[in-house]
Protein backbone atom coordinates (compact mmCIF):
# COMPACT_ATOMS: atom_id res chain seq x y z
CA UNK A 1 0.00 0.00 0.00
CA UNK A 2 1.22 3.51 -0.73
CA UNK A 3 1.91 5.54 2.41
CA UNK A 4 -1.03 7.52 3.76
CA UNK A 5 -0.75 11.30 3.49
CA UNK A 6 0.46 13.17 6.51
CA UNK A 7 -1.98 15.60 8.13
CA UNK A 8 -1.68 18.07 10.95
CA UNK A 9 -1.99 16.66 14.46
CA UNK A 10 -4.22 19.68 15.06
CA UNK A 11 -4.67 21.74 18.23
CA UNK A 12 -6.59 19.06 20.12
CA UNK A 13 -4.18 16.16 20.63
CA UNK A 14 -5.55 14.82 23.92
CA UNK A 15 -3.69 15.92 27.00
CA UNK A 16 -4.95 12.73 28.59
CA UNK A 17 -2.60 10.84 26.25
CA UNK A 18 0.33 12.25 28.24
CA UNK A 19 1.35 10.47 31.39
CA UNK A 20 3.89 11.22 34.07
CA UNK A 21 7.30 10.22 32.78
CA UNK A 22 6.45 10.29 29.07
CA UNK A 23 9.13 12.97 28.64
CA UNK A 24 11.70 10.85 30.47
CA UNK A 25 13.59 8.83 27.85
CA UNK A 26 15.36 6.84 30.58
CA UNK A 27 12.27 4.84 31.55
CA UNK A 28 10.94 1.90 29.59
CA UNK A 29 7.58 2.09 31.38
CA UNK A 30 5.84 4.78 33.38
CA UNK A 31 6.67 2.97 36.62
CA UNK A 32 10.12 1.64 35.79
CA UNK A 33 13.20 2.99 37.48
CA UNK A 34 15.16 5.22 35.12
CA UNK A 35 18.29 3.72 33.59
CA UNK A 36 21.40 4.95 35.34
CA UNK A 37 23.86 3.70 32.71
CA UNK A 38 24.95 7.15 31.62
CA UNK A 39 24.89 10.83 32.49
CA UNK A 40 21.41 12.18 33.16
CA UNK A 41 20.72 15.41 31.30
CA UNK A 42 17.80 17.77 30.71
CA UNK A 43 17.01 19.13 27.27
CA UNK A 44 14.72 22.13 27.30
CA UNK A 45 13.74 25.07 25.17
CA UNK A 46 10.90 26.84 23.45
CA UNK A 47 9.10 26.27 20.17
CA UNK A 48 8.49 29.48 18.24
CA UNK A 49 6.66 30.28 15.02
CA UNK A 50 6.87 33.33 12.76
CA UNK A 51 7.76 36.62 14.51
CA UNK A 52 9.04 34.76 17.56
CA UNK A 53 5.58 33.89 18.83
CA UNK A 54 5.44 30.93 21.21
CA UNK A 55 3.71 27.76 19.99
CA UNK A 56 1.30 26.32 22.52
CA UNK A 57 0.33 22.64 22.66
CA UNK A 58 2.98 21.48 20.24
CA UNK A 59 3.78 17.78 20.54
CA UNK A 60 7.47 16.85 20.55
CA UNK A 61 8.93 13.38 20.32
CA UNK A 62 12.59 12.62 21.02
CA UNK A 63 14.53 9.53 19.91
CA UNK A 64 18.16 8.66 20.52
CA UNK A 65 20.73 5.95 21.13
CA UNK A 66 21.69 4.89 24.64
CA UNK A 67 24.74 6.22 26.47
CA UNK A 68 26.98 3.73 24.64
CA UNK A 69 25.54 4.68 21.24
CA UNK A 70 23.31 1.63 20.75
CA UNK A 71 19.69 1.16 19.78
CA UNK A 72 17.56 -1.71 21.02
CA UNK A 73 16.37 -2.31 17.44
CA UNK A 74 17.23 -4.60 14.55
CA UNK A 75 18.72 -1.67 12.67
CA UNK A 76 21.63 -1.82 15.15
CA UNK A 77 24.00 -4.79 14.73
CA UNK A 78 24.83 -4.43 18.43
CA UNK A 79 21.22 -4.28 19.58
CA UNK A 80 21.86 -7.22 21.92
CA UNK A 81 24.30 -5.02 23.85
CA UNK A 82 21.89 -2.08 24.17
CA UNK A 83 20.92 -0.87 27.65
CA UNK A 84 17.75 -2.90 28.42
CA UNK A 85 16.53 -0.32 30.94
CA UNK A 86 16.72 2.63 28.57
CA UNK A 87 13.87 3.42 26.18
CA UNK A 88 15.43 6.27 24.22
CA UNK A 89 12.03 7.68 23.28
CA UNK A 90 9.92 10.34 24.93
CA UNK A 91 7.05 12.70 24.27
CA UNK A 92 6.50 16.21 25.58
CA UNK A 93 4.20 19.11 24.82
CA UNK A 94 4.70 22.82 25.04
CA UNK A 95 3.08 24.97 27.72
CA UNK A 96 1.52 28.42 27.38
CA UNK A 97 4.99 29.97 26.89
CA UNK A 98 5.97 27.39 24.29
CA UNK A 99 8.35 25.58 26.63
CA UNK A 100 9.17 21.88 26.56
CA UNK A 101 11.60 19.66 28.46
CA UNK A 102 12.98 16.11 28.23
CA UNK A 103 15.02 14.14 30.73
CA UNK A 104 17.39 11.59 29.25
CA UNK A 105 20.91 10.18 29.25
CA UNK A 106 23.61 11.86 27.21
CA UNK A 107 23.61 9.74 24.03
CA UNK A 108 26.76 8.02 22.83
CA UNK A 109 28.24 8.33 19.39
CA UNK A 110 28.80 5.27 17.21
CA UNK A 111 30.23 4.00 13.97
CA UNK A 112 27.80 3.43 11.11
CA UNK A 113 29.32 1.96 7.98
CA UNK A 114 32.57 3.84 7.47
CA UNK A 115 31.35 6.98 9.20
CA UNK A 116 31.21 8.18 12.77
CA UNK A 117 27.99 9.56 14.16
CA UNK A 118 28.32 12.25 16.78
CA UNK A 119 25.99 12.05 19.79
CA UNK A 120 22.59 13.30 18.67
CA UNK A 121 18.87 13.28 19.42
CA UNK A 122 16.26 13.23 16.68
CA UNK A 123 13.31 15.50 17.38
CA UNK A 124 9.89 15.39 15.73
CA UNK A 125 7.64 18.40 16.11
CA UNK A 126 3.90 18.21 15.49
CA UNK A 127 1.19 20.80 15.98
CA UNK A 128 -1.66 22.84 14.56
CA UNK A 129 -0.56 24.46 11.33
CA UNK A 130 2.17 21.90 10.72
CA UNK A 131 0.73 19.67 8.04
CA UNK A 132 3.79 17.41 8.13
CA UNK A 133 5.99 16.34 11.01
CA UNK A 134 8.93 18.74 11.30
CA UNK A 135 12.06 16.65 11.82
CA UNK A 136 15.33 17.96 13.13
CA UNK A 137 18.40 16.68 14.97
CA UNK A 138 20.02 18.06 18.10
CA UNK A 139 23.81 17.81 18.49
CA UNK A 140 26.00 18.56 21.52
CA UNK A 141 28.76 21.17 21.75
CA UNK A 142 31.30 18.61 22.98
CA UNK A 143 30.59 16.14 20.15
CA UNK A 144 32.78 15.71 17.09
CA UNK A 145 30.02 17.20 14.97
CA UNK A 146 32.31 18.17 12.11
CA UNK A 147 32.80 14.46 11.33
CA UNK A 148 29.07 13.64 11.47
CA UNK A 149 27.65 12.93 7.99
CA UNK A 150 24.23 14.41 8.76
CA UNK A 151 25.63 17.53 10.42
CA UNK A 152 27.75 17.95 7.29
CA UNK A 153 24.61 18.13 5.12
CA UNK A 154 23.58 21.35 6.85
CA UNK A 155 24.92 24.56 5.29
CA UNK A 156 27.84 25.75 7.43
CA UNK A 157 26.25 29.06 8.52
CA UNK A 158 23.24 27.13 9.88
CA UNK A 159 25.05 24.27 11.61
CA UNK A 160 25.25 26.11 14.92
CA UNK A 161 21.46 26.14 15.13
CA UNK A 162 21.52 22.37 15.61
CA UNK A 163 23.92 22.49 18.57
CA UNK A 164 22.30 22.60 22.02
CA UNK A 165 23.74 25.18 24.36
CA UNK A 166 25.01 24.29 27.86
CA UNK A 167 22.68 25.81 30.41
CA UNK A 168 23.89 24.73 33.85
CA UNK A 169 25.11 21.35 35.08
CA UNK A 170 23.50 18.58 33.04
CA UNK A 171 21.24 21.04 31.24
CA UNK A 172 21.11 21.94 27.58
CA UNK A 173 18.93 24.48 25.86
CA UNK A 174 17.62 23.87 22.35
CA UNK A 175 15.09 26.33 20.94
CA UNK A 176 13.12 25.32 17.87
CA UNK A 177 12.18 28.08 15.47
CA UNK A 178 9.71 26.74 12.94
CA UNK A 179 9.55 29.75 10.65
CA UNK A 180 11.46 32.96 10.08
CA UNK A 181 14.75 34.62 11.03
CA UNK A 182 16.91 32.11 12.82
CA UNK A 183 14.81 29.21 11.55
CA UNK A 184 15.90 25.77 12.67
CA UNK A 185 17.14 23.54 9.85
CA UNK A 186 14.70 20.68 9.19
CA UNK A 187 15.20 17.44 7.32
CA UNK A 188 13.31 15.51 4.68
CA UNK A 189 13.96 11.84 5.35
Amino acid at each position, binding site marked *: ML*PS*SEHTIGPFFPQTFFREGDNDLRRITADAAPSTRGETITIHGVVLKADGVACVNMVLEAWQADAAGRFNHEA*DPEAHLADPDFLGWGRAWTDAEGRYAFTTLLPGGYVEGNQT*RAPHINLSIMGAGLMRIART*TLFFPQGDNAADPIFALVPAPLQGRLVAQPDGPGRYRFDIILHGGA*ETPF*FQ*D
Partner: protein
Amino acid sequence: MAERFDPWPEGIQPHVPIAGYPNTFSHTPSAPLIHRPATRTERAAPARLSQKLLCGDDNLAVIAPGRIAQGQLIHISGRVLDEDGRGVPHAVVELWQANAGGRYRHPIDTRDAPLDPDFIGNGRVLTDAAGRYGFFTIRPGAYPVPVPQTWWRPPHVHFSVLGPASLSRLVTQMYFPGDPLNALDRILQSVPDPAARARLVAAMVPPVEVGLGWLAYRFDIGLRGRAATPELL
Protein backbone atom coordinates in the same frame (compact mmCIF):
# COMPACT_ATOMS: atom_id res chain seq x y z
CA MET B 1 12.80 -5.28 9.44
CA ALA B 2 12.82 -2.29 7.18
CA GLU B 3 15.29 -2.70 4.34
CA ARG B 4 14.28 0.22 2.26
CA PHE B 5 12.65 3.61 2.59
CA ASP B 6 11.77 5.13 -0.75
CA PRO B 7 11.12 8.85 -1.07
CA TRP B 8 7.49 9.93 -0.72
CA PRO B 9 5.77 9.38 -4.07
CA GLU B 10 4.55 12.56 -5.76
CA GLY B 11 1.17 13.96 -4.79
CA ILE B 12 0.73 12.19 -1.46
CA GLN B 13 2.13 14.77 0.92
CA PRO B 14 -0.01 17.88 1.49
CA HIS B 15 0.96 20.98 -0.43
CA VAL B 16 1.86 23.71 2.07
CA PRO B 17 1.28 26.42 3.07
CA ILE B 18 -2.49 26.26 2.51
CA ALA B 19 -4.39 29.33 1.32
CA GLY B 20 -7.03 30.32 3.88
CA TYR B 21 -5.34 28.40 6.70
CA PRO B 22 -3.11 31.07 8.29
CA ASN B 23 -1.36 28.77 10.76
CA THR B 24 0.29 26.91 7.91
CA PHE B 25 2.05 30.14 6.91
CA SER B 26 3.37 30.90 10.39
CA HIS B 27 4.41 27.33 11.26
CA THR B 28 5.72 25.78 8.06
CA PRO B 29 9.49 26.10 7.71
CA SER B 30 10.34 28.54 4.92
CA ALA B 31 13.73 27.08 4.01
CA PRO B 32 13.84 23.99 1.82
CA LEU B 33 14.03 20.76 3.81
CA ILE B 34 17.48 19.18 3.84
CA HIS B 35 17.37 15.76 2.24
CA ARG B 36 19.14 13.15 4.28
CA PRO B 37 19.59 9.42 3.86
CA ALA B 38 17.91 7.03 6.25
CA THR B 39 20.59 6.51 8.87
CA ARG B 40 20.36 4.06 11.73
CA THR B 41 18.59 6.63 13.91
CA GLU B 42 15.77 7.11 11.41
CA ARG B 43 15.49 3.38 10.65
CA ALA B 44 15.19 2.48 14.30
CA ALA B 45 12.35 3.14 16.74
CA PRO B 46 11.66 2.24 20.36
CA ALA B 47 11.11 -1.40 21.19
CA ARG B 48 8.07 -2.38 23.24
CA LEU B 49 6.66 1.13 23.10
CA SER B 50 3.29 -0.25 24.23
CA GLN B 51 4.77 -0.65 27.71
CA LYS B 52 5.30 3.10 27.82
CA LEU B 53 2.16 4.14 25.92
CA LEU B 54 -0.42 1.88 27.49
CA CYS B 55 -2.68 0.28 24.90
CA GLY B 56 -6.01 -1.55 24.97
CA ASP B 57 -8.39 1.38 25.21
CA ASP B 58 -10.51 0.63 22.14
CA ASN B 59 -13.99 1.71 23.20
CA LEU B 60 -14.66 5.44 23.16
CA ALA B 61 -18.42 4.99 22.89
CA VAL B 62 -19.07 3.19 26.16
CA ILE B 63 -17.40 5.11 28.97
CA ALA B 64 -18.76 2.74 31.63
CA PRO B 65 -21.44 0.05 31.72
CA GLY B 66 -24.69 1.72 30.75
CA ARG B 67 -23.06 5.05 29.93
CA ILE B 68 -23.07 5.35 26.16
CA ALA B 69 -21.94 8.37 24.18
CA GLN B 70 -24.43 10.35 22.14
CA GLY B 71 -24.36 10.05 18.41
CA GLN B 72 -24.22 7.42 15.72
CA LEU B 73 -22.39 4.42 17.13
CA ILE B 74 -19.70 3.28 14.74
CA HIS B 75 -16.88 0.77 14.54
CA ILE B 76 -13.68 1.68 12.71
CA SER B 77 -11.32 -1.12 11.82
CA GLY B 78 -8.60 -1.79 9.34
CA ARG B 79 -5.01 -2.74 8.94
CA VAL B 80 -1.76 -0.87 9.25
CA LEU B 81 0.24 -1.86 6.18
CA ASP B 82 3.72 -1.25 4.88
CA GLU B 83 4.50 -0.33 1.28
CA ASP B 84 4.61 -4.01 0.36
CA GLY B 85 1.04 -4.36 1.64
CA ARG B 86 2.09 -6.45 4.59
CA GLY B 87 0.49 -5.95 7.97
CA VAL B 88 2.58 -4.09 10.51
CA PRO B 89 2.31 -5.96 13.82
CA HIS B 90 2.54 -4.27 17.22
CA ALA B 91 2.17 -0.73 15.93
CA VAL B 92 0.74 1.74 18.44
CA VAL B 93 -2.41 3.35 17.02
CA GLU B 94 -3.82 6.45 18.72
CA LEU B 95 -7.21 7.89 17.81
CA TRP B 96 -8.93 11.09 18.93
CA GLN B 97 -11.93 13.01 17.72
CA ALA B 98 -14.68 15.50 18.41
CA ASN B 99 -18.00 14.44 19.90
CA ALA B 100 -21.23 14.20 17.94
CA GLY B 101 -21.68 17.97 18.27
CA GLY B 102 -18.26 18.68 16.81
CA ARG B 103 -16.52 19.63 20.06
CA TYR B 104 -13.35 18.20 21.56
CA ARG B 105 -12.97 17.52 25.25
CA HIS B 106 -9.87 19.69 25.36
CA PRO B 107 -9.18 22.84 27.41
CA ILE B 108 -8.47 24.92 24.33
CA ASP B 109 -11.66 23.92 22.51
CA THR B 110 -13.86 26.66 23.96
CA ARG B 111 -16.42 26.62 21.18
CA ASP B 112 -20.06 27.02 22.15
CA ALA B 113 -21.14 23.48 21.37
CA PRO B 114 -22.24 20.93 23.95
CA LEU B 115 -19.87 18.57 25.71
CA ASP B 116 -21.13 15.03 26.14
CA PRO B 117 -20.49 13.81 29.72
CA ASP B 118 -20.27 10.28 28.34
CA PHE B 119 -17.68 10.96 25.66
CA ILE B 120 -13.99 11.64 26.20
CA GLY B 121 -12.91 10.97 22.66
CA ASN B 122 -9.57 9.22 22.59
CA GLY B 123 -8.21 5.69 22.58
CA ARG B 124 -5.03 3.75 21.96
CA VAL B 125 -4.54 0.19 20.75
CA LEU B 126 -1.79 -2.08 19.51
CA THR B 127 -2.11 -3.77 16.12
CA ASP B 128 -2.26 -7.56 16.20
CA ALA B 129 0.09 -9.95 14.41
CA ALA B 130 -1.60 -9.19 11.08
CA GLY B 131 -1.54 -5.43 11.60
CA ARG B 132 -5.24 -5.18 12.45
CA TYR B 133 -6.74 -2.58 14.75
CA GLY B 134 -10.27 -1.55 15.70
CA PHE B 135 -12.15 1.08 17.71
CA PHE B 136 -15.74 1.46 18.88
CA THR B 137 -16.73 5.10 18.81
CA ILE B 138 -19.30 7.56 17.48
CA ARG B 139 -19.42 9.54 14.28
CA PRO B 140 -17.93 12.95 15.10
CA GLY B 141 -19.67 16.18 14.19
CA ALA B 142 -18.33 18.85 11.86
CA TYR B 143 -16.88 22.03 13.33
CA PRO B 144 -15.89 25.44 12.01
CA VAL B 145 -12.27 26.59 11.91
CA PRO B 146 -11.95 29.98 13.66
CA VAL B 147 -10.06 31.86 10.94
CA PRO B 148 -11.13 34.93 8.93
CA GLN B 149 -12.16 32.92 5.86
CA THR B 150 -13.76 30.23 7.93
CA TRP B 151 -14.57 26.78 6.69
CA TRP B 152 -16.05 23.70 8.29
CA ARG B 153 -13.97 20.67 8.98
CA PRO B 154 -15.87 17.64 7.76
CA PRO B 155 -16.45 14.87 10.28
CA HIS B 156 -13.02 13.32 10.73
CA VAL B 157 -11.03 11.14 13.08
CA HIS B 158 -7.40 11.85 13.97
CA PHE B 159 -4.88 9.00 13.87
CA SER B 160 -1.32 8.81 15.16
CA VAL B 161 0.65 5.66 14.37
CA LEU B 162 4.00 4.63 15.83
CA GLY B 163 5.44 1.82 13.76
CA PRO B 164 8.68 -0.12 13.50
CA ALA B 165 10.87 2.79 12.34
CA SER B 166 11.07 6.50 13.01
CA LEU B 167 10.54 6.90 9.29
CA SER B 168 7.19 5.12 9.51
CA ARG B 169 5.86 7.58 12.12
CA LEU B 170 2.56 8.90 10.76
CA VAL B 171 -0.04 11.43 11.83
CA THR B 172 -3.10 11.56 9.59
CA GLN B 173 -6.89 11.89 9.56
CA MET B 174 -9.77 9.70 8.42
CA TYR B 175 -12.84 11.04 6.63
CA PHE B 176 -16.33 9.64 6.04
CA PRO B 177 -17.52 8.64 2.57
CA GLY B 178 -20.03 10.87 0.85
CA ASP B 179 -19.81 13.86 3.15
CA PRO B 180 -20.27 17.06 1.12
CA LEU B 181 -17.82 18.92 3.38
CA ASN B 182 -14.97 16.68 2.22
CA ALA B 183 -14.68 18.51 -1.09
CA LEU B 184 -14.54 21.88 0.73
CA ASP B 185 -12.01 20.96 3.39
CA ARG B 186 -8.79 22.91 2.97
CA ILE B 187 -6.85 20.28 4.89
CA LEU B 188 -8.02 17.21 2.93
CA GLN B 189 -7.83 19.11 -0.35
CA SER B 190 -4.20 20.10 0.31
CA VAL B 191 -3.28 16.56 -0.74
CA PRO B 192 -2.70 16.95 -4.49
CA ASP B 193 -3.32 13.40 -5.72
CA PRO B 194 -7.04 12.45 -5.82
CA ALA B 195 -6.15 8.82 -5.21
CA ALA B 196 -4.19 9.78 -2.10
CA ARG B 197 -7.17 11.80 -0.88
CA ALA B 198 -9.44 8.84 -1.53
CA ARG B 199 -7.22 6.68 0.67
CA LEU B 200 -8.01 9.00 3.59
CA VAL B 201 -11.74 8.31 3.20
CA ALA B 202 -13.03 5.25 5.03
CA ALA B 203 -15.18 2.65 3.30
CA MET B 204 -18.52 1.50 4.68
CA VAL B 205 -18.70 -2.22 5.29
CA PRO B 206 -21.56 -4.51 6.17
CA PRO B 207 -21.83 -4.59 9.98
CA VAL B 208 -21.71 -8.38 10.20
CA GLU B 209 -18.38 -8.51 11.97
CA VAL B 210 -19.39 -6.20 14.81
CA GLY B 211 -23.08 -6.98 15.21
CA LEU B 212 -26.16 -4.87 14.70
CA GLY B 213 -25.40 -2.03 17.07
CA TRP B 214 -22.58 -0.46 15.14
CA LEU B 215 -22.29 1.09 11.74
CA ALA B 216 -18.98 -0.20 10.43
CA TYR B 217 -16.21 1.54 8.54
CA ARG B 218 -12.97 0.18 7.22
CA PHE B 219 -9.83 2.31 7.13
CA ASP B 220 -6.42 0.97 6.16
CA ILE B 221 -3.35 3.01 6.97
CA GLY B 222 -0.14 2.90 4.91
CA LEU B 223 3.24 3.42 6.53
CA ARG B 224 6.52 4.09 4.77
CA GLY B 225 8.94 1.21 4.44
CA ARG B 226 9.39 -1.89 2.34
CA ALA B 227 10.05 -5.33 3.75
CA ALA B 228 9.41 -3.60 7.01
CA THR B 229 7.88 -6.56 8.78
CA PRO B 230 8.53 -10.31 8.86
CA GLU B 231 6.63 -12.45 6.37
CA LEU B 232 3.37 -13.69 7.79
CA LEU B 233 3.18 -17.46 8.15
